[in-house]
């Protein structure tokens, strides 16, 4: 009988108590974990995005935000203010020069604009044929000619293609450079892929990642000199350094294979033991009968 009394009493107390609950954690929880999608990047919460996607803005401006959202920059949390400056957290002051707002660069300022972060690449580019032509005529290829401005994708050898390069010169020259890059680029791609795989499989790859990043950045900077001979001359150095990383990666894969084999060995031992024990237990049961 007691149970029929206790359950309704508990439910009643819980519901009455609910009326007295406070809600600060609950509100935070609902806002941050229940109602909002998880994948919103930090950069999204900014005055720049809010304004440039509002209905009052020119649709062309909407396109810029769409392009940025699909870019390599967005994937790496590089937001509007990281390039254009300003105060994204403060809508009223976001575009004030006093708050570091730079706006869109003039054509000749583009290398310096991108070079704020890509320092070594800017330096090599300015000394290259591309950079010199650009500075002399103001019409040569700048960063955005090859990489775009907002829809910036992860740089790869595919950027060197007939369609893009033949806008200024014959593709043969670019092809030569592509061939010089091929071996090192292939190694870079394969190492990048394997490091990601190892990380997912629980192997600590921090040291190899740092070495990879260093070589990757140096090689990309070298490429921007557009000097085929220099790229060829240094390729063997980079190949050697990357092979050292590859060897460490191979060791890690061997270690993973050992772990799997060791676990499989133990698995088989316990399967065998369980069969033996099962048969033994059956023997005792039959003895009893």
């Amino acid at each position, binding site marked *: 009988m*007691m*149970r029929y009394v*206790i*359950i309704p009493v*508990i*439910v009643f107390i*819980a*519901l009455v*108590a*609910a*009326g*007295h*609950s*406070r809600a*600060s*954690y*609950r509100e*935070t*929880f*609902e806002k*941050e*974990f*229940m109602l909002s999608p*998880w*994948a*919103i990047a*930090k950069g999204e919460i900014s005055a720049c995005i809010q304004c440039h996607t509002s209905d009052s803005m020119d649709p062309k401006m909407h396109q810029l935000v769409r392009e940025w959202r699909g870019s390599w920059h967005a994937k790496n*949390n590089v937001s509007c203010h990281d390039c254009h400056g300003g105060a994204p957290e403060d809508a009223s002051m976001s575009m004030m020069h006093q708050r570091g707002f730079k706006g869109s660069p003039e054509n000749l300022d583009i290398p310096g604009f991108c070079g704020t972060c890509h320092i070594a690449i800017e330096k090599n580019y300015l000394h290259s044929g591309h950079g010199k032509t650009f500075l002399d005529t103001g019409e040569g290829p700048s960063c955005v000619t090859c990489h775009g401005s907002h829809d910036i994708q992860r740089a790869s050898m595919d950027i060197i293609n007939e369609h893009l390069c033949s806008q200024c010169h014959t593709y043969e020259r670019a092809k030569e450079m592509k061939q010089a890059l091929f071996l090192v680029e292939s190694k870079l791609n394969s190492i990048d892929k394997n490091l990601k795989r190892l*990380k*997912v*499989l*629980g*192997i*600590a790859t*921090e040291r190899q990642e740092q070495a990879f990043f260093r070589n990757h950045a140096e090689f990309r900077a070298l490429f921007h000199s557009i000097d085929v001979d220099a790229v060829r001359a240094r390729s063997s150095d980079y190949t050697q350094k990357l092979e050292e990383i590859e060897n460490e990666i191979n060791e890690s894969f061997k270690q993973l294979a050992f*772990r*799997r084999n*060791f*676990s*499989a060995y*133990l*698995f088989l031992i*316990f*399967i065998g*033991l*369980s069969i033996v*024990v*099962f048969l*033994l*237990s059956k023997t*005792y*049961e039959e003895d*009893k009968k």
Partner: protein
Amino acid sequence: MWERITHWIEVRIGLEELVNKHLRQFRTPKGATFWSTLGFVTLIAFIVQAVTGIMLLLYYIPHPEHAFNSVQTITNEIPYGWLFRLIHNVGGNIIVAVIIMHMVHVFLRVSYRRPREITWVTGVLMFLLVLLACITGQLLPWHQTGFWQTTVTSTIPAFLPVIGEGISSYMRGGEFVTGITLSRFFSFHVVILPVFIVALMFLHVLLIRRQGLSTSPLIEPETETTPPDDFKRDAHPEGQPCFPHFSLKRLFMVMVYFAFLFFILTFFPNIFLPPEANIQADPMTTPESIRPAWYFLAPYQIIKTIPNDVLGISLLVIFSFILMFWPFFDARDAGRNIRKRPMLLSLGLIVLALWLIFTIWGMYS
């Protein structure tokens, strides 16, 4: 030589008498199946967790700046450290599954009824403490998955009226998950919870030894239709001696447990370690998808589904309360054969089905 060693031990410990008294003379009832050994498997699984946990403790550093790297060192640099870490990680999940199976088995046999109410209560309490041990353990490696899972799970109690925010705040040691939370969870995971679990385990086993194992109601329904008013130990003279018959069944299930453990380690070593578990905790970066561990998916989904979250958490608390004290809620005059109690069987199956549905829903929502 072997006989001399055993004789030497026998003279000093009296092993023969010990085995006779506690294993040969202790008889198990007819109908004790492999399922009846799940409690023992839980005990072994707990010992495995304790041993591997101690091994991890030798190298683990409970500090936000060092915790992640120390676990990475254990996994990648300490000889066979990966094995201890993976056994501890996978074993922690298997132990929850084994306890759930054990509880379902006890429920279906209606073994919780008088005089075994305290055994059931201590069992459920242990289950809740094991879940707490899992919650506290998932933060210790200080990786993204653990950090954000803790953020979510430590917020759930906040829905409780009046005391909820206090519980959340106490769990975290403040408003957010920080180094204080890590320190708190570490002490709970390594000392406080194991001490309580061992104490309850001792009581649980003591009660089983005193009362004897319960008979299957399907085999001997007449023996327990009227629960005794005085203490009466089920000696099961018609049953089998615990050693070797039942002990071999236990040993077989323990071997199956280890085989399953190493099966997971061989083919799905990272099943409970998603890619984010290899990234150091970063309070500023929320991962794309955060879900609680599989055993918390059902309560998590219930809270998400029920529009009034206070009602959601209240239902969970009431459910836990009823589960824990179920022997006192169950009808006293009904028999133990669940086939003759369709209402009870339906209730059990509905709860199980709902739990499964909410778990799967939580997995894909």
